[in-house]
C-alpha cells in the first residue's frame, strides 16, 4: 500500500469536534492511515480507498433471504406499472393484496412512511385524480388527508417558532426602533391609514422612491392594497431577519426584499404561470428535472418561513408537487395562496404576541387585508 503523508498538527478538527461532545473517538493512530489527500505533495501516491473499510456495508454479503431480494427487484417495476399502465392500476385497485402477492411484493414496501411513496400512492389514486380534474382544491386536500398523505395541516408551528425566535432576541425590536418605525397601529382605522402621517413615515422608510410606481392602481384598491402591501412587506422584513439572523443586515435586506414586494405590486397583472420545470443544477441536486409550481418571488420569500415547521413544509410541498404532477394549475395556485395566507397569519399573530407590532383590534382587519393583497395583487385573483 502506498505511503501517505502523516497527519499534521492542523488536522485535528474531527477529533476536536468529537471530543468536545464528550464522545469516545477513534484514536489518532487509528485514523492516521486516512490522512487527507488534499495536502499531499504531487509526488505522493495517494491511497485511493481506505485499507480496512469496515463501513462498507456490503449488500452482497448481507444476511438477507433470497426471496427478499426478489421482492426488492420487483418494487420499482410495480410502481412503474401502476404509474404508466391503466390496466395494471385498475387491477391493483380491484384487489391490492392479490395484485401485490402475484408480483411477490410485500404490501408494507409500497405503503412505507416516505414522502415519495406517499406521492406515488396519491398519483395513482382514482379519487385524487378526479378531484384534480375537477380543480376541487378542498376535496383534493380532504382526500389526501383521508388517505394519510397529509395530516391535519396546521401552521401554528410556524407561529410558535417565530414567537420563540423573536422573544429570545430583542435585536429586531431595536432595529425597528432605530428605523423610527412606530408600529402601534391599534388606534388607527386601517382604511384611513393610507392618509395618515404614520403611513407616510412607514411608506418612506419601506418603499422610498419605489412608491411612485404603484400609484397607477385604481383609487379604491390603492389604499387597501398599499396598506396590505406594507404589512406584507413588514412580514417579509421579518422573514429576512429570521433567515439571515443578523441585525447588521436588516435594513439592507429590507431594501432588497421590499423592492421585490413593490415590483410584485407593480407587475401584479401577471397571473402566476402554470407549473414550470426546474432543472435543479445549482447544487448538483438529485432531482434532475423537477416539476415545481411557478410562484411569485415575494411568495417564495415568505415561504422561506416554512422551514420553521418542517412537517408543515413537507405536507405543503407534497400537496403542491402532487397537484403539479397531476397537471392542475388551479390547485397549485389555490394551494400556494392558501399556504401564503396561513404564513402571513402566523407572522402577524407572532408579531403581535411578542409586542413587535400593536395592531390590537386592527389585527384581524390587517390580516384580512394582507390576505386580500395576496389574492388580488400577488395572485391577481378576480373573485372576492
Amino acid at each position: 500500500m502506498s505511503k501517505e503523508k502523516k497527519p499534521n498538527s492542523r488536522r485535528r478538527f474531527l477529533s476536536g469536534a468529537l471530543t468536545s461532545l464528550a464522545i469516545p473517538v477513534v484514536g489518532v493512530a487509528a485514523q492516521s492511515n486516512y490522512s487527507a489527500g488534499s495536502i499531499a505533495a504531487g509526488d505522493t501516491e495517494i491511497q485511493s480507498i481506505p485499507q480496512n473499510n469496515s463501513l462498507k456495508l456490503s449488500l452482497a454479503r448481507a444476511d438477507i433471504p433470497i426471496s427478499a431480494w426478489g421482492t426488492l427487484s420487483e418494487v420499482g417495476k410495480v410502481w412503474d406499472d401502476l404509474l404508466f399502465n391503466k390496466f395494471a392500476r385498475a387491477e391493483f385497485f380491484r384487489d391490492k393484496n392479490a395484485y401485490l402477492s402475484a408480483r411477490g411484493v410485500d404490501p408494507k414496501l409500497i405503503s412505507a412512511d416516505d414522502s415519495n411513496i406517499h406521492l406515488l400512492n396519491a398519483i395513482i389514486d382514482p379519487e385524487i385524480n378526479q378531484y384534480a380534474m375537477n380543480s376541487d382544491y378542498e376535496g383534493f386536500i380532504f382526500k389526501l388527508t383521508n388517505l394519510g398523505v397529509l395530516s391535519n395541516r396546521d401552521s401554528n408551528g410556524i407561529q410558535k417558532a417565530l414567537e420563540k425566535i423573536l422573544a429570545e432576541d430583542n435585536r429586531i425590536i431595536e432595529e425597528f426602533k432605530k428605523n423610527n418605525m412606530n408600529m402601534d397601529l391599534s388606534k388607527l382605522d386601517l382604511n384611513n391609514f393610507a392618509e395618515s402621517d404614520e403611513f407616510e413615515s412607514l411608506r418612506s422608510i419601506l418603499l422610498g422612491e419605489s412608491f411612485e410606481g404603484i400609484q397607477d392602481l385604481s383609487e379604491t384598491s390603492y389604499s387597501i392594497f398599499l396598506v396590505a402591501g406594507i404589512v406584507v412587506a413588514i412580514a417579509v422584513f421579518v422573514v429576512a431577519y429570521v433567515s439571515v439572523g443578523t441585525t447588521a443586515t436588516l435594513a439592507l435586506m429590507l431594501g432588497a426584499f421590499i423592492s421585490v414586494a413593490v415590483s410584485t405590486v407593480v407587475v401584479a397583472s401577471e397571473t402566476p404561470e402554470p407549473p414550470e420545470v426546474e432543472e435543479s443544477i445549482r447544487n448538483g441536486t438529485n432531482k434532475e428535472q423537477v416539476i415545481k409550481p411557478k410562484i411569485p418571488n415575494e411568495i417564495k420569500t415568505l415561504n422561506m418561513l416554512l422551514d420553521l415547521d418542517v412537517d408543515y413544509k413537507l405536507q405543503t410541498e407534497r400537496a403542491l408537487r402532487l397537484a403539479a404532477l397531476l397537471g392542475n394549475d388551479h390547485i397549485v395556485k389555490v394551494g400556494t395562496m392558501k399556504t401564503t395566507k396561513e404564513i402571513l397569519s402566523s407572522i402577524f399573530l407572532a408579531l403581535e404576541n411578542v409586542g413587535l407590532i400593536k395592531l390590537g383590534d386592527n389585527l384581524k382587519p390587517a390580516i384580512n387585508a394582507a390576505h386580500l393583497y395576496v389574492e388580488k395583487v400577488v395572485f391577481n385573483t378576480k373573485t372576492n
Partner: protein
Amino acid sequence: MELPAYIHPEFLKIFPSTMTILVTYGCTAACEQCCFESNPSIKHRLSLSQIKESIDAAKVAFPALKLVVFSGGEAFMLKDDLYEAVRYATSLNLKTRIVSNGYWAKNKERAKEIMATLHGFGLSELNLSTGLDHQKWVNESTVFNAAEASLSLGVSTLVTLELDSSESNCLENFISNERYKPMNKNEKFSLINNSWMNFQENAEERQQLSEMSFNSLRGGCSQVFDNLVVTPHNNLSACCGLTLEHIPEIRLGSLNDSKLWDLYAAQLEDFLKVWIHMDGPFTIMEKLLGKDGMQYIGEVRHICEACAIMHKNPKVITALTENYEKFVPDVLSRLSAKVSLSNFERTIVQQGLPS
C-alpha cells in the same frame, strides 16, 4: 454495464446528473479554515487529458449527466487548460460551472477578457466564494469585478458568502456596496450566505445557523449517487462535501487503475451510500440509536460535519455494522420508489401525462 437487480432499471436516467472535477487543491489563497487546506504551495493538479478522459467516460456511461463543475482549490490556476476543459464539456452538450475565489478579476478589463473567453467556450455559470477568510486573500472589489464581468455576458453568477463571525460584517459590506444594487436586480445573480465549518480547534466562532437552516440539514444527501467527483489525484469520490478528504470511506478508488463506471457502480453495493443518499446522516443516527443518536450531532453546522461524525464515532460505527441489515428492505424499496417517481416526472416533462 449492469446495475444490481435491486436497483431500479431507470436509475441511470436520473443519476448522476453532475460531475465535479476538483482540478487542483492548489489555491492562490490559503484560508485558515479551508476544508481542503488549499494553498499556493500545492502544485499537484489533474492534467488536461485526465480531465477530458473523465468527462468522456462520464458522458458515455451516464445518460443523465448534464453539468460539469470545475472546482478546487482554485480552478482558474489551470488557466488555458480550464478554458479548454470548459470548451470540451460544452462540445459534448454539457453545461458547465466554475467555482472560484475570483482572484483573476483584480483588473476589470482583464476580468472581462477572461469571462468573454469562457463565455465563448460556453460557460453556463460562475460561482464566486468570498467572506471573512476568503477576503484576506481576495478583496471584495475583485469579487465584484468578477461577478460584473460574468453578469455582463449573461452568465449565471452565484456569490457565496461565508457566515460572518461576531466581529466581521462581510455580508453587510457586500450588500451595502453600491455595486451590489444593480447586480441584485439581475435575475441571473444569486447571493447565498453559507455556513462556514471550522476545521481547526482555535478557529474564530462563526454565527450559528438559524433554526430554520438547521432543520433544512435533515434529509438525504443529494450528492451521493448524483455527483461524480474527481479529485486532483484522479480518485473518484462519492461526494464533494466539505469533509470529503476527512472521510476515507467516501473515496471510491483511483481512476488510474479502474474505470469510472466500475467505481461508481461499486458504491451501489455499499448500503451505507444508499442510506446516506436516502436519509442522510442525521436520520441514520436517529434510526440506529434512537434519540440518543442526536447527542452525537452536538452543535453541528453542516450535514457534512454530521456525516464525518457518523463515519468516525465508534458507537455509530458499531451500530451500523451490527444492525444495518434490518434496514435494507425499507431503504432499497424507498430508493426504487424515488427513482420511479423521478422517472415519472421526467416522462411527463417530455411526453405529457400518460393516459
